[in-house]
């Protein structure tokens, strides 16, 4: 079972085989997606017809619209980026405020609030989506019936998508930032205060620099989760589709390998993000 105990040879072989099979299971779907982005055929399916970059570079004149000329896809990547940036900014800001609230302040009802802050993580994303959709529509109807004001931002569309994703991503940001704030040595703040620094200066020069890794980590997770979100977004989306919704629609119709191209682009982008974060992380630990 563990290396310090005698392990029969068959068990060692079985373990290695299992790990090998597991890695194949993990990576085959991703490898297949990447490989068929370069297949010279109109569908991402075998057999192999030769190597091409058409699914990246092709434009209308070549009969194959590649990723870099597919306005719809590029537009949806931009939409997703915009939404993710808003969600990230909101989640990190509110998450940091929540962390200070839960770690530093005392007030009645704090225990209830602490549990409430975790509930968005156990509500299925689809339900978060429909409940926010229904509530926002009720508010919009109310505004239009009573004041004659058309509150378009409360109708399905990007502002609602941002709010829907924010509603649970902020819970994760709160957990990440709280965990680091909890380990902070408060005597450092006292020392700075004793030396005559103002509260604002202490926050800016002592506490926030200490929280930096957690803030960056929370931002990266928030961006990634927002970019990849499907369930909540599906219920709240209006005319502009973020990338996941656009891809879903095309996958149902049976799309060309341009989807593989955009997937490969996503894989490379998230791999770069992961590597940057891990490098930061290992440097911070040294």
């Amino acid at each position, binding site marked *: 079972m563990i290396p310090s105990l005698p392990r029969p040879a068959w068990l060692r072989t079985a373990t290695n085989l299992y790990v090998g099979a597991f890695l194949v299971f993990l990576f085959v779907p991703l490898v297949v997606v990447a490989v068929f982005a370069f297949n010279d055929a109109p569908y991402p399916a075998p057999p192999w017809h030769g190597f091409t970059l058409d699914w990246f570079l092709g434009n209308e004149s070549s009969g194959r619209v590649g990723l870099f000329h597919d306005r719809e896809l590029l537009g949806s990547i931009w939409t997703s980026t915009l939404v993710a940036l808003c969600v990230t900014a909101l989640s990190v800001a509110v998450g940091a405020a929540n962390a200070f609230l839960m770690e530093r302040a005392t007030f009645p009802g704090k225990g209830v609030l602490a549990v409430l802050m975790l509930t968005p993580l156990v509500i299925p994303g689809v339900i978060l989506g429909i409940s926010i959709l229904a509530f926002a529509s009720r508010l919009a109807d109310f505004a239009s019936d009573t004041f004659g004001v058309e509150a378009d931002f409360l109708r399905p569309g990007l502002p609602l998508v941002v709010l829907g994703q924010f509603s649970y991503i902020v819970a994760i940001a709160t957990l990440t930032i709280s965990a680091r704030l909890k380990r902070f040595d408060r005597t450092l703040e006292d020392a700075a205060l004793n030396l005559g620094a103002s509260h604002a200066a202490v926050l800016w020069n002592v506490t926030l620099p200490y929280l930096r890794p957690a803030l960056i980590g929370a931002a990266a997770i928030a961006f990634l989760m927002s970019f990849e979100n499907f369930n909540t977004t599906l219920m709240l989306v209006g005319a502009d589709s973020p990338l996941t919704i656009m891809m879903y629609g095309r996958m149902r119709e049976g799309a060309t390998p341009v989807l593989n191209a955009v997937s490969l682009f996503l894989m490379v982008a998230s*791999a770069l993000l992961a590597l940057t974060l891990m490098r930061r992380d290992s440097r911070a630990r040294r």
Partner: protein
Amino acid sequence: MPDTTMTVNWRRRLVLALLLAPALLWLVGLIILPHVDLALLSFRERVAPREYVPSLAQYRTFFAEPLYWHVFVRTALLSALATALTLAVAFPIAWVIAKVARGRASALLFMVCLIPFWVSETVRTLGWMILLRESGVLPSLLTHLGITAQPVELLYHDATILVGLVYTSLLFMVVPLVGSFESLDNELIEAAYDLGGKGGAILREIVIPHAAPGITAGCIVVFMLTLGNYLTPTLLGGKNSQWFTEQLYTQFITRFNWEQGAALGFLLLGLSTAMVWLGLKLSGQRFSDVMRRA
């Protein structure tokens, strides 16, 4: 100096109010009120245009219409099965990462296990579709090897949905399992072995009891995510998927029957909450500890 104390007090209150405001706006505005509204919606019935009366009609429809509750039960059972399978697949890998592999190898293996989950679920599902569809990689490989005479359609089966769900859920099981295996002292296992314990007994009496919190955390999260999944069942199961979230979507977005959709949503939320509660009760843990672990 009563004057200064008052300023300090006042300032403290102001800071507290400023910190409380975003948290309350978030929880009340985006979580509590929308769910209260959803509940109200589910308990009313339209009798005339823009005229509603309180009623249980939506819930009655759910029980009267076999399609609804069949799909509901089916989704719950398949989710439970997917959770059990995920646990079975993840358990040995987590053990290897935490106990068998050492140093760099263990860190590397752990990292490699996380990589696919940096990629969106849409991309992963696309991969499975290319692999499994009738014109896809695996069926043509099987024909090539002479195992099947014709390419077979491997998409649109319950087993396909399960494969996709297990694949998507693995991360959420591996991470808490590795955490709880790592905290298990090797000396305990050695002592059990020296006292004559066999592999199975050690697993049953030492490893599983110790890892119970991690197992529960993983199972709760995986079950909840599987139950609420939409993308994987609809794409890998096609028309045969019959996943409950699909009916929610149909009622809300396609048919615009929000009252019925709200009732179905509440039933799904109820099931999900009940399973979380049950998991916590069975393992005797607190909600907040489990969520931090996951």
